[in-house]
């Protein structure tokens, strides 16, 4: 791999940019691999990357039915924060956030991590209490976060309307080290680094069956033929139920649509991320100037990557009350992704009922922020054959044990 650098730009400028190579190979699948990962989203690619980098396992393939990063990784609103309530969550999300800080250097690929700060607005008395509780929990967990009053909110976000009418801004949980990153770049950066280590990323290759022998996984059937493997990782977000069915087990997961939209580009207006969980809307401004907006998820099972329009309406209605200045903006694009929701709104990482088959899923509406931490943990779990320190709490056996990691109460909503 030719490294990207200021020198490389100068070199290529001098020869009219004719020397840039492909960022990753486009290999034909081998007959067999030590490890196959299904799903080339951020989580699958990060898993493969840390298998190679941290564990020296490079006879690995990532199999993707569409194009890499074309699932939720390429459809999300890129909010990154780690101030969750429960210790287990704070640990893995903070691991991920801290890996994001040096990810561009690590991958030699600019993922445009922008720690611009994330505000979660408190617009009811309950939210104030909830976020103060989270602030205290975060202090014990070593996650830097702070509850701030409405004046400071207004100082950070001049375009915000704090006096209501219906839901005045009473304060906010503020994580200055949270922010955003470029979603595609995260997938592309991991893909390029994987490919460079000799890991095969096989796109346009849909997995249609999972083969097993004596209760253990032996390989997969795909639209590009059979591939055998010793270990298999299912990292397919909204399609987890489909793959689990192929592997012969059920998951505590429902797949539903979550939507986002972007406005026409405008001059810089807001330089932090604002989430308003009571009214279901969140907003940030991209480097191109578009306002990136997201809202609530649909309530019914759906695989079509299209959501219901009334959710868009609700989100926009909430946001123009909070940011009256945007009421005349035109919206440019709107889309949906299929998110995998667990009963306690926490992810699943670990073993499955099928021997040597591992799963990393259930990130639902908030897994972009977790990509580096999840890949790190899933790679360790697959390499050792048992959950690592981060994954230990997130096994799917927690549902039979009643040991939930309840973030549905803590976060109220998405992300």
């Amino acid at each position, binding site marked *: 791999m030719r490294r990207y650098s200021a020198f490389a730009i100068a070199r290529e400028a001098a020869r009219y940019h004719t020397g840039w190579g492909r960022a990753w190979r486009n290999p034909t699948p081998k007959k067999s691999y030590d490890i196959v990962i299904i799903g080339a989203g951020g989580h699958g690619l990060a898993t493969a990357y840390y298998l190679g980098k941290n564990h020296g396992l490079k006879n690995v393939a990532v199999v993707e039915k569409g194009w890499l990063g074309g699932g939720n990784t390429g459809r999300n609103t890129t909010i990154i924060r780690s101030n969750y309530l429960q210790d287990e969550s704070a640990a893995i999300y903070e691991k991920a956030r801290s890996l994001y800080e040096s990810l561009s250097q690590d991958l030699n690929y600019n993922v445009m991590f922008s720690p611009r700060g994330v505000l979660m607005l408190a617009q009811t008395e309950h939210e104030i209490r909830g976020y103060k509780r989270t602030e205290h929990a975060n202090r014990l967990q070593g996650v830097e976060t702070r509850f701030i009053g409405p004046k400071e909110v207004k100082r950070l976000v001049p375009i915000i309307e704090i006096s209501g009418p219906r839901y005045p801004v009473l304060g906010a949980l503020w994580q200055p080290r949270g922010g955003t990153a470029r979603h595609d770049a995260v997938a592309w950066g991991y893909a390029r680094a994987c490919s460079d280590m000799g890991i095969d990323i096989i796109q346009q290759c849909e997995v249609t069956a999972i083969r097993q022998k004596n209760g253990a996984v032996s390989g997969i059937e795909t639209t590009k033929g059979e591939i055998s493997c010793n270990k298999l990782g299912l990292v397919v977000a909204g*399609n987890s*139920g*489909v793959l*689990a*069915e192929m592997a*012969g*087990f*059920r*998951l*505590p*997961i*429902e*797949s539903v649509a979550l939507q986002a939209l972007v406005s026409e580009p405008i001059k810089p207006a807001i330089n932090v991320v604002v989430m308003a969980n009571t009214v279901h809307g969140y907003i940030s401004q991209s480097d191109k100037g578009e306002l990136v907006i997201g809202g609530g998820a*649909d*309530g*019914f*099972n*759906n*695989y*079509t990557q*299209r959501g*219901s*329009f*009334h959710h868009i309406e609700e989100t926009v209605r909430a946001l123009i009350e909070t940011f009256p200045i945007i009421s005349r903006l035109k919206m440019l694009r709107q889309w949906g992704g299929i998110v995998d929701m667990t*009963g306690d709104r926490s992810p699943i990482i670990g073993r499955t009922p099928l021997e040597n088959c591992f799963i990393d899923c259930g990130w639902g509406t908030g897994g972009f922020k977790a990509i580096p931490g999840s890949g790190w943990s899933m790679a360790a779990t697959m390499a050792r054959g048992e959950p690592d320190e981060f994954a230990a709490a997130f096994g799917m056996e927690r*549902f*039979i044990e009643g040991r939930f990691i309840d973030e549905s109460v803590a976060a109220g909503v998405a992300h």
Partner: protein
Amino acid sequence: MLSLHCPYCGVDVDETDLTPGGEAHLVRSGSGSDDADFEAYLFMRKNPRGVHFERWRHSFGCGKWFHAARATDTLEVFGTYSAQTKEPPQDVQERIRARRPDWKGFGKGDRI
């Protein structure tokens, strides 16, 4: 927007007047069941990509629960029916079979 026919009121209802209630025909575990049964009842879901049977409530209408047969990969609705039943009525099953010849039948082909 999804639109479903309320079998009680006999009218077509927009999604905004309805509340989704998840997978239908779950077997409810009573006392004496083991942990795995409770886990299956409370959490484990079929979540299929294709034909699905689910519970809906006509919240801003009669307020009653009913069942719907739907395709989760196209959002096509095959039919709705009363919740007072253990399996989808024959006419709904036939409509599904007509539209999806490879559908294995209610509760059939479930490996899990």
